């Protein structure tokens, strides 16, 4: 019996030592940037893109002399796409002395961990797109891409004014990504007087979209709006082509993603939609970035890699601007700031942040033609 307790006690002591280890940090450390991101669990794919984009950016920044003459150390923390873990990881990043936190992408996890960053006054550049992120009056949160409440109006305007749509069917992924997009989209439809005649959710990882497509087809809607993750988008599009659905198909960023095109092939042709950031944007900076990224990682980046890359350069630009690695000054400086590629090439496109941390850039209306994104129209900054 005694041995059992002894074991427990030893483990407890070992634990105490490990837990106390973060305190051993010394003063001469490089500037620490925390990358709190989904590296396992449901968000592993987007998180990996993000991490690679971020790593690429900071390698370049370090190679060019770092920040304020100091090198940058990127610390990676895996949220496991799990809210409690993400909170713990943000806390750990702060305990480890992170200057700025980048990530995560899943809105649900950001919802909780942004509070921790706020309490500790640490600026956080997130990849999340759910509307509420910037609506909570948190002065330390900044987006790296459009919130759904910004991108959906652009799409809605296109649907109602250019395409003349009166009725629409929505297919969405039943998780916080899909639900967030769906809710914003439906709200916009109401504003534009477009009727949502079918509202169809699907599961992440769903294999068979026959039932979804049967319902979409039978809904009588003039247009179909699809808001699913890449693989499910590809499966749905294939099924849509199979069942010979005639309605026009619209999407937001993900649906026209190169990944979806690779996976679904011809089935994506003719799909139109709004794209916030895309690796196929006809912007010289993005084209260069994609080349560098592909050379290093042997795969084509998605918009999450671009978000992280530009986020990293925003950190660089702001830090150099304020001339010190100060969290409060950073947060203050990034509000109502515009960075142009002329000032900082790594930002890729002219980007502004407003007083809530919301982002603003040009975006694109695209159509997929012959397995390539074709930009129909470049939409100006709001």
């Amino acid at each position, binding site marked *: 019996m*005694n041995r059992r*307790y002894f*074991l427990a*006690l030893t483990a407890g002591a070992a634990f105490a030592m490990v837990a106390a280890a973060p*305190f051993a940090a010394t003063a001469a450390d490089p500037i620490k940037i925390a990358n709190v991101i989904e590296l396992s669990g449901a968000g592993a794919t987007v998180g990996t893109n993000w991490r690679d984009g971020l790593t690429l950016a900071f390698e370049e920044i370090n190679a060019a002399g770092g920040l304020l003459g100091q090198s940058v150390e990127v610390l990676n923390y*895996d949220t496991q796409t799990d*809210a*409690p873990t993400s909170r713990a990881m943000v806390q750990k990043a702060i305990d480890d002395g992170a200057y700025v936190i980048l990530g995560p992408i899943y809105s649900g996890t950001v919802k909780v961990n942004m509070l921790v960053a706020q309490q500790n006054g640490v600026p956080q550049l997130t990849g999340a797109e759910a509307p*509420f992120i910037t609506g909570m009056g948190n002065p330390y949160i900044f987006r790296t891409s459009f919130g759904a409440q910004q991108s959906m109006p652009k799409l809605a305007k296109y649907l109602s004014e250019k395409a003349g749509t009166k009725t629409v069917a929505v297919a969405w992924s039943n998780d916080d990504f899909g639900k967030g997009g769906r809710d914003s989209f439906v709200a916009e439809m109401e504003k534009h007087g477009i009727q949502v005649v079918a509202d169809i959710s699907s599961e992440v990882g769903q294999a068979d979209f026959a039932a979804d497509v049967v319902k979409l087809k039978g809904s009588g809607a003039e247009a179909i709006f699809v808001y699913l993750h890449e693989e499910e988008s590809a499966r749905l599009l294939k099924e849509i082509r199979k069942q010979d659905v005639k309605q026009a198909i619209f999407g937001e960023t993900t649906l026209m993603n190169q990944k979806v095109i690779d996976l679904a092939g011809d089935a994506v042709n003719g799909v139109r939609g709004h794209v916030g950031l895309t690796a196929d944007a006809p912007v010289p900076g993005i084209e260069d970035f994609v080349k560098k990224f592909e050379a290093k990682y042997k795969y084509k980046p998605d918009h999450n890699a671009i978000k992280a890359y530009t986020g990293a350069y925003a950190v660089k630009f702001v830090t150099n601007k304020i001339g010190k690695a100060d969290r409060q000054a950073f947060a203050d400086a990034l509000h109502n700031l515009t960075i142009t590629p002329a000032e900082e090439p790594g930002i890729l496109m002219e980007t502004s942040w407003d007083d809530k941390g919301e982002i603003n850039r040009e975006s694109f209306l695209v159509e997929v033609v012959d397995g390539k994104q074709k930009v129909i129209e470049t939409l100006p900054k709001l």
Partner: protein
Amino acid sequence: MNARANFLAILAAVAVLAVLPSSLSTYSVYVLCSWMVFSIAAMGLNLTLGFAGQVSLAQAAFMGIGAYTTALMTMAGIPWPLAMIAAAVECFLIGLVLGYPALRVQHHFLAFVTLAFNALVFLVLRNEEWLTGGTYGVVGIPRPSVLGFSTNQQTGFYYVVFGFFLVLSAVLYGILRSPWGRAFQALRENPIRANSLGVDIRRMTLLAFAIGSAYGGIAGGLLGQLVQFIDPNSFTLTISLKVLLMVIVGGAGYFFGPYLGALLVILMPEFLRFTEGYYLMLYALLVIVLMISCPKGLLGIVDRIKLSIKLRQNPSATAWEQGK
């Protein structure tokens, strides 16, 4: 015997845990809190599975039910002690109901039923948005205030969790020492013989589920307050399997198994973090190696060492013990 030494060892451990937060970073205190919360959930499962022998893969579902109950009640202005009690009672009752299949089927079939139950609870939590907030979850769950002291600081809340941890450990110890504990163990080892000795196996089976589930509910309530956010994803089957892992790795049927198991499962990623992208692979490998080398869990090793000492002293110990 060495009951006194045991007692002193426990006292020392409690004392260490009581003073530890003052010398730890906020993050480490947070990790300690989640260790204790998951220990509570694992203690409950250890009662159901380790002592009473009823396989349950639904502990996360009860954590979820407990978490949502406490969160929604406290946010509606109901005092947190009432909310915690409500969560425990609710999970106790649902646990009773979930125990019914165990009267009909055992072992793997029971595992399947509880697994399906967990998946169903997830769907309800996600789909019934009017009540649970759906996919978005519930944010801003208040932390309890104790005797007028707020526990919004991590250390303050640590002592709330620590209090629950101690009391629930003591309660479980009391149950296991009582005739109920003996009946649970008899249920695991030989239900038919137990029945013929007057043990009402139906009642004990249901109770094993109900008490284990109530522990899950309390753990869930604490988890919600710790994270201050809950969403359906925190209570999936994966989390149930994680709690199961804690129980088995620590040693099912050993009182201290869940504590050790939870410590390991929560801290192992911490130890392995230096391997960056490989840490989950190493983690999985370690679990496999541990299972192969010691299927009865870590505390099973202790038993094995004791046996080998005994064998050295008395080589005639029976084959039955060696075969374990």
